[in-house]
């Protein structure tokens, strides 16, 4: 295989794996932004917690990675509900006219608290999650690890399940109705507070499971949530704030850009190039790929 083909295989492999994880992580962020206009800046901490919860189950109970991910998902669901009832519901109750800024500040506070808690409980040392499947295959000069393929497949399965839930179930359709027009949904008898709680619980579950997948790809560290959160924000903005379809498409484009930059220019340029790309996108398409002009809804 020539150099060009080898690079192409490496980029395609990295795009599929990274794009799938980015999609799962970003859909989590997009779902709650679309439903309740809440930009969760504790998203990075949710990702990291997912990795650590999976590590606890894998390390102390000896569970295989896929079962550890299931427990991380459940933990994220509960963490989402906790965030709603402790932080967001009181803010909704106040009826603050500055909802956007109030929730951003609150989520930054939550992120600081969670990161400190992780550091206190697990310490600063790096931790590694076990691989689900060992072994690899070499195509040209690219080493394709089965574990990475497993991670990509799990991320895609999560997206398929989430998409099915949102388009076929009673709760999922109601959740999207609230995201589309909260007042009209209210007239259908759809309780917005229940939908807000559902949205953040599902978002938490997606974030922690994506975090567990990332943890199996990289090493775990308490402050390692920032970069993937920034990437998720780029994906969500690029896809169109609140658009699930746009988010998934954008995740794979961002995955491709990251893979391309990392394999051609160097990995340290990944985020700078990504943000430059986002600025260009916002100039020419201010609402992203599938976004619409945003209106205040809470």
């Amino acid at each position, binding site marked *: 295989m020539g150099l060009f083909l080898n690079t192409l295989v490496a980029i395609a492999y990295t795009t599929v794996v990274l794009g799938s994880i980015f999609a799962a992580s970003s859909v989590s962020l997009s779902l709650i932004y679309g439903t309740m206009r809440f930009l969760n800046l504790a998203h990075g901490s949710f990702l990291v917690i997912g990795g650590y919860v999976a590590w606890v189950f894998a390390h102390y109970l000896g569970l295989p990675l896929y079962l550890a991910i299931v427990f991380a998902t459940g933990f994220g669901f509960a963490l989402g509900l906790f965030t709603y009832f402790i932080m967001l519901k009181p803010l909704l109750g106040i009826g603050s006219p500055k909802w956007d800024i109030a929730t951003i500040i609150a989520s930054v506070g939550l992120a600081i608290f969670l990161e400190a808690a992780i550091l206190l409980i697990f310490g600063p040392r790096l931790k590694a999650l076990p691989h689900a499947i060992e072994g690899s295959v070499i195509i040209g000069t690219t080493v394709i690890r089965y574990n990475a393929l497993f991670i990509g497949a799990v991320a895609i399965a999560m997206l398929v399940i989430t998409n099915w839930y949102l*388009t076929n179930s*009673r709760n999922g*359709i*109601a959740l*999207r*109705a609230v995201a*589309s*027009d909260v*007042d*009209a*949904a*209210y*007239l*259908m*008898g*759809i*309780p917005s507070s229940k939908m807000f709680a559902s949205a953040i619980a599902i978002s938490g579950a997606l974030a922690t499971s994506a975090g567990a997948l990332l943890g199996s790809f990289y090493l775990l560290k308490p402050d390692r949530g920032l970069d993937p959160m920034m990437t998720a924000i780029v994906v969500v903005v690029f896809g169109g704030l609140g*658009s699930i379809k746009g988010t998934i498409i954008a995740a794979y484009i961002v995955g491709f850009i990251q893979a391309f930059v990392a394999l051609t220019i160097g990995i340290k340029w990944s985020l700078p190039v990504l943000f430059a790309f986002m600025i260009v996108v916002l100039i020419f398409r201010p609402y992203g790929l599938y976004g*619409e002009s945003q209106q205040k809804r809470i």
Partner: protein
Amino acid sequence: MLEKFDKDNLDKHLQIKNIKGGYGEYSVLEDITIDVQSGEVVALLGPNGHGKSTLLKMISGLIPISSGEIIFNNSRINDLNPSEIVNLGISHIPQGDMIFSDMKVVENLLAGAYMQWSDRENLMTDVLSKFPNLKERLNLPARILSGGERRMLSLARGLMCSPKLLLIDEPSLGLAPILKETVYKMLKEISVQGISILIVEEKIDYLRDFANKIYVLESGRIALKGKSSEILNSKEALLSAYVG
């Protein structure tokens, strides 16, 4: 809490008794009393900004009333939330469609059946038999529908909760005359099936052979009420209520 609740009671009677209320400290409605009998079509007529839409929002629980009471099927409903009110069989079709633009037509209809989910397939079949045009567009995004189709979707979605009483806010607003006729033809078909209707309109054109009773609202008070034939034939009374 409901004092008396019989969902299958065929007496679909709405009584609005001396209600007052508005937005915060700003009072919009004063001492409004309205009756809607079972199977009846009652119209609220009046100039823009005089409280017609606010009254519908109060009935569907979106805006609290400050005094008076709203009774439906012999049960007091003004302390209930919108979900409970929809569950009793009151469906509010708002002004300006308010369809879920980024969802498919079929998903809009399913969202309307949120309170009747177990019966959604029968409701869908029934509603699509009334709106055959929507049947061909079920899997299209609602945002690409024409103005008339959006209005039909809004009506169809309102029927997906199996209502006993429809609250309809200006169904002809912004539509071309031919589409207005189609909308009113559809509403007549709905009314024939025994669903009571409380409809808000600014124009009287289509109410003549549709509404049984008319209430004219002016500055948040009932300025005129009576059978539609009496009200619509009394131009002087109507003018005085509109112009003051």
